[in-house]
C-alpha cells in the first residue's frame, strides 16, 4: 500500500472523441457512467466506435495519462506532445499512475479501479504523424473501470482511498 501514501493529484485536462481517428477535444467537464464509460466518448460500452472496440475491455471506460510524461518526452526527445494528442481521457498532475494498477482511487467524486497500464500503439503515430511510439513505452497511462460515476471537472482532486 506504499503507493497509496504521499500523493495528491489534480485533473489537468479532460478530452473525449466520439469516433476512431477523430481529434480529441478538450472538455471542462465529462460525465462518467459506472460500468460503461464516458458520455460521448468512443469507448463507452454499448456504443463503442473506437479503434480497438472490436476487442472490448472494461478498463477502457476511462483512461488517464500523466502531464509529467509530456514534460519528460519534451525534455528527453525534444518532442512536443500536447494533452489532446496522447488520446487518453484524463491528463493528471501529481499522480504516480504506474503504481496504481489494481488499486482503487478517487477521481473527483468518482471511484475508479485501475485494471492495467495502457500501452502505446502504432495507430497513434498514424494519427499524429509523430514518432511517439518508442517514447511512450512503459509510460503510456492507465486504463480504469468506473465503479462510481459522476461529473468530473478540470481542477478536481485525484486522491488515494
Amino acid at each position, binding site marked *: 500500500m506504499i503507493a497509496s501514501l504521499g500523493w495528491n493529484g489534480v485533473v489537468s485536462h479532460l478530452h473525449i*472523441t*466520439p*469516433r*476512431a*481517428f*477523430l*481529434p480529441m*477535444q478538450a472538455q471542462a467537464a465529462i460525465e462518467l457512467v459506472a460500468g460503461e464509460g464516458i458520455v460521448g466518448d468512443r469507448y463507452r460500452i454499448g456504443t*463503442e*466506435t*473506437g*479503434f*480497438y*472496440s*472490436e476487442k472490448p475491455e472494461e478498463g477502457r471506460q476511462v483512461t488517464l495519462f500523466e502531464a509529467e510524461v509530456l514534460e519528460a518526452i519534451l525534455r528527453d526527445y525534444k518532442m512536443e506532445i500536447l494533452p489532446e494528442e496522447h488520446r487518453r481521457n484524463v491528463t493528471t498532475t501529481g499522480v504516480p499512475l504506474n503504481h496504481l494498477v489494481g488499486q482503487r482511487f478517487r477521481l473527483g467524486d468518482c471511484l475508479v479501479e485501475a485494471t492495467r497500464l495502457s500501452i502505446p500503439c502504432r495507430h497513434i503515430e*498514424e*494519427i499524429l*504523424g509523430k514518432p511517439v511510439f518508442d517514447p511512450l513505452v512503459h509510460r503510456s497511462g492507465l486504463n480504469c473501470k468506473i465503479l462510481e460515476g459522476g461529473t468530473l471537472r478540470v481542477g478536481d482532486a485525484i486522491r488515494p482511498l
Partner: protein
Amino acid sequence: MARHIELRVAEARPAGPGIRRLTLRDPDGWPLPRVRPGAHLDLHVPGVGPRAYSLCGDPSVQDAWTVAVKLEAESRGGSTWVHGLREGDPVAASMPRCTFPLAKGAARHVMIAGGIGVTPFLAMAPVLERAGAGWTLHLLHRGALPCPDELARWLASGRAVAHDTAVTPRPSLDALLGPWQPGLQAYCCGPLAMIDAFEQATAAWPSGTARAEHFVPPILAPDPSARPYTLVLAGSGAAADVAAGGSMLAALRALGTKVEASCEGGICGACKMRWLEGEPIHRDRVLTPEERQTHLMACVAGCASERLVLEA
C-alpha cells in the same frame, strides 16, 4: 467501422469539365484529423476497394475535407461511384496520408499540374501564401479549367498561370521550371507522360528537389533477378513461401494479416509495413531512403535474401 473514418457528403457540386467536388464532414460536425498539404484520402468504394484522391481544400479548415474527382472514361470504379454520390450519403475513409509534402525550407516552389492534377496544389496554395513563401503554379489544361472557383483567386493574383493547350502551344517544362538554383523546389502532378517529362527535365537536379505525385501507379517491369524467399511474421511466427516475383501483399493476406492497401502499385503509402530482418527490394515510388531503412511497401516489395521478417 472502427477502422475507418465515417464521413457524410455535406456538399456535392460540379467543379469544371467532368469533375465533381465533394465536401465531406463528420456526421456530427466533429473536427477531422489534421492533414498536411499534399495529402490524399482513400475513400472506400463499396464493392471496389479503396481509391485515393488528393485533398484539395485548405488544410486549416478542421471540420471538412474536400476532394475533386474527374469522371474517367475507363473508371476502375472509383470516379463513377463518386459521381453518383448525393448530399447526405455516408462515405468511409482511411486516415489521410501525405506522400507529396511541401519541402521545408525551400525559398521558392514551382508547381506543374496537368488538368485534374491541380488538386494537391489547391491545398498547398493557401499554406504557402500564409507562410509568405514564393510560389508559382503552372496549370496545363485543354479547354475549360478544372476547379475554376478554387483557382480564381490564384489566377487573379498571378500566383497561378493557366496554359490552355487547346489554344496555345504546350509550354516546355524546362521553360516553366527554369534552371535549378539553391532553394528552388519543383512539384508535378498529372498524367504519366507529364511526370515522365518532368522527371527528365529535373534529372540533373539535386536529390529531393523535384517531387512528383502519380494519379495511377506506373506499371512495374518484372524483375528478372527476383528470387523466392520465406516471409515471416515476427508477432505470430507464421511463415509463407513467396515465389520469385510473387506478391508480398498476397502472401500477407494468405497468412490472414489485415493489410490496408489501395493503389497496389507502390505510390499511395497504404500498405507501408515495418521490416525487421532480411534484405528487402523496395521498388516503390513513395518511401524516402531513410524510411526504407525500417519500412517497405508490401504491394511492390521483393526480397534479395532467403528470409524476410516483418513486424506483423
